[in-house]
């Protein structure tokens, strides 16, 4: 069975997704256990694949038994191995943690919710594991379509935001598809490794350049790279909280992985960095993204919206780090894919817990929350410190690699932008800590008449236990990822970067 781990990783959740739909019509109580079992199996399979990659190098799986380029293959190496584990872990933890909210909110359509949830995760895993450029598009469709549905179910303006996301996401995916079509026209193959083998002869062809631009533009749109981010804040902020804590950590990160994969494996650094000399301008765009994302985050007082703008800035970190084109920068970008998934999950889950207990969504509504929800706020603090980049949380280490990459490349604008963004994050999070810690709890809805009496009247009213356990696990993960950052880079990330890059 070990030979099939990489396939099981995708097949198990896919098959279970349809069973969950059926279970939803027979007995709703089966939906959650089935989903949890599927994601647990997926997580174990992803760890198994990673262990195999660690031992034997690249793991390949040929669908229908046909070797590429005839058939479609899954190809897991050190790069997507760790991304797969991150996706499976976040998806499983989020499923476990948000169960109380989901069962309360979607009691009448539980089967549909969990089916869409698992299909979204399947799509993301499939995008990450595949070795076929067209198959990647099909799975982007799955992940996007289920994402639109889940986001559109949120309260208030969620459906409008989801529609906007749908338009932009479709444009992005179509651009990527067009790029893949051009590549097929130029080479006659869709397999990534085969493409990389056939492209060098025709690097001068206009088709290849057009394909490159189309793919990159489409992916930038899908990952929310400033100024193509406009769909992101609304979609993620208005999404139902169990969904935003799944989508926000994973979707943009997976798209960044796709960019790294397409650049490293399909077009190869020779074309992307040396022939086109695109690195400098992409890094400057990333600098703009980081600065703009930070300012936008500063300009809003709504908690979830602020967090989404931080994501926009973080996308800039990773894109910039990758396009620095040196070893430290690319290591930082890849490490940050995993770290950012973990810390975004941590803060979004805490935000979900806060939003459930606390009505009102601005940061001014968080008054006295340390007294009311001590554990949740502690987790939020850890997540915040990691996003700021305080050691020993993981955020510090990826930022360290990114900054040393910037220094090595002599790109001081990028270094300055990273430091500036860290400072802004410091302001953002300490503003929240201050309000939540020092300002006394007031009942801002005024209904009960003990408003303004101070913290004495506040009873601890924590999130459900299940959610707390998951949140604390996520927070501990941030430290663990930080402490083992060196090992992750040594053990996995260095194998990814082609030897030509210093």
């Amino acid at each position, binding site marked *: 069975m070990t030979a099939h781990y990489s396939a099981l990783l995708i097949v198990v959740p896919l098959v279970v997704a349809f069973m969950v739909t059926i279970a939803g019509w027979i007995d709703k109580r089966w939906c959650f256990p089935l989903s949890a079992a599927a994601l647990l199996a997926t997580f174990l399979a992803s760890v198994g694949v990673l262990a195999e990659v660690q031992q034997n190098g690249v793991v390949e799986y040929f669908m229908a038994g046909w070797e590429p380029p005839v058939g479609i293959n899954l190809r897991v190496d050190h790069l997507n191995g760790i991304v797969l584990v991150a996706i499976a872990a976040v998806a499983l933890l989020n499923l476990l943690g948000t169960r109380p909210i989901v069962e309360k909110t979607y009691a009448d359509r539980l089967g*549909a919710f969990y*089916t*869409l949830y698992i*299909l979204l995760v399947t799509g993301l895993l499939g995008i990450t594991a595949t070795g076929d450029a067209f198959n990647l598009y099909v799975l982007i469709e*799955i992940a996007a379509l289920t994402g639109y549905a889940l986001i*559109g179910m949120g309260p208030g303006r969620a459906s409008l935001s989801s529609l906007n996301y749908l338009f932009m996401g479709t444009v992005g995916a179509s651009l990527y598809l067009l790029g893949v079509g051009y590549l097929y026209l130029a080479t006659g193959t869709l397999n990534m490794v085969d493409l990389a083998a056939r492209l060098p002869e025709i690097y001068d062809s206009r088709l290849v350049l057009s394909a490159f631009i189309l793919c990159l533009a489409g992916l930038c749109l899908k990952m929310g790279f400033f100024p193509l981010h406009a769909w992101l804040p609304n979609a993620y902020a208005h999404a139902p909280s169990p969904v935003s804590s799944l989508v926000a950590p994973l979707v943009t990160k997976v798209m960044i992985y796709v960019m790294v994969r397409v650049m490293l494996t399909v077009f190869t650094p020779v074309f992307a960095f040396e022939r086109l000399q695109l690195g400098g301008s992409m890094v400057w765009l990333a600098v703009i993204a980081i600065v703009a994302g930070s300012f936008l985050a500063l300009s809003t007082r709504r908690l979830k919206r602020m967090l989404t703008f931080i994501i926009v800035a973080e996308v800039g970190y990773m894109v910039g780090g990758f396009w620095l084109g040196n070893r430290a920068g690319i290591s930082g970008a890849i490490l940050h894919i995993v770290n950012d998934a973990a810390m975004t999950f941590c803060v979004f889950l805490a935000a979900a817990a806060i939003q459930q207990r606390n009505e009102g969504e601005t940061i001014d509504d968080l008054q006295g929350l340390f007294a009311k929800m001590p554990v949740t706020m502690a987790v939020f603090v850890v997540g915040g410190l990691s996003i700021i980049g305080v050691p020993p949380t993981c955020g510090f280490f990826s930022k360290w690699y990114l900054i040393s990459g910037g220094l090595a490349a002599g790109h001081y604008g990028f270094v300055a932008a990273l430091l500036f963004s860290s400072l802004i994050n410091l302001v953002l999070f300490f503003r929240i800590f201050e309000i939540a810690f020092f300002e006394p709890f007031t009942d801002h809805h005024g209904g009960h008449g003990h408003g303004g009496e101070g913290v004495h009247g506040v009873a601890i009213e924590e999130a459900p236990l299940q959610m707390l356990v998951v949140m604390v696990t996520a927070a501990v993960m941030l430290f663990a990822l930080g402490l083992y950052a060196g090992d992750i880079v040594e053990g996995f990330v260095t194998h990814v970067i082609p030897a030509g890059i210093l």
Partner: protein
Amino acid sequence: MRALALITVLMVGGLLFYGLPDFPDWGDPVSPASTHLSPFYIEQGAADTHAPNVVTAVLAYYRGYDTMFEAAVIFSAGLACFFLLRTFQQKSEETRLYRHIPTGVTLRIEEGGKTPAGSEEFEPIDSHWVPYDMIINMTCRLIVPFVQLFALYVIAHGHYSPGGGFQGGVLFGAAIILFAISHDLRSVFRRLQEKAVMFLSAVGVLIYAGTGVVCLVLGGNFLDYSFLAGMLGVDAVMARSHGILIIEIGVGLAVMAVMVMLYYNLSSAGRHDEGL
């Protein structure tokens, strides 16, 4: 904003034109697309799968993994529509029409009036009900079986001619929707409940993925139908051919059910009381 959009569109258009000079000539036999992989599919396809239609061989066998997810995309679309639109609360009753079955008298009950719901002698009718639609009814009743038969043919004949699960499933779904439009939503519900539709859509894709899992259990790779040979009692080539048929049936079921599910939810805004 409009200027910005125009500039973007012009830039994308310009990019598409920029690539144009390096396009292979139309129908060029030595273009990369016709020389790299296509010869293999054309020469081997029929021998490997016993399906003279190369497109079917590639879609359902060599690249069957893609097609499985395409079916899953369609399933997700149907499910998304259900998830977003379906409301289980009945709409606060406005004016309602009921027909007294023995006499054919139509009652119009204003908001707040007492409805004869539950009575055997009355049946609800749509608020924009057309009294005399016998010609439409009869015509559609005559057409529907033929459309369904043709749909089955398209699904089954995908190996030899253009067709297959997607096309056949759409035709089958269209037949049911035609019946729904010519009659009303309630008469379709009597024949095909919402639960059954959901069930069929999931089962359809499950047949596809499940076939893959069976191949995996029998020792092959996922979706390698030749490992079904022992179970089906045929040789490897025929096993692939049968495998393609099985997954086409699965796709057909799923697509049919999703078409109907989309119609149910869109036509009644998720309330499932009265349709178009």
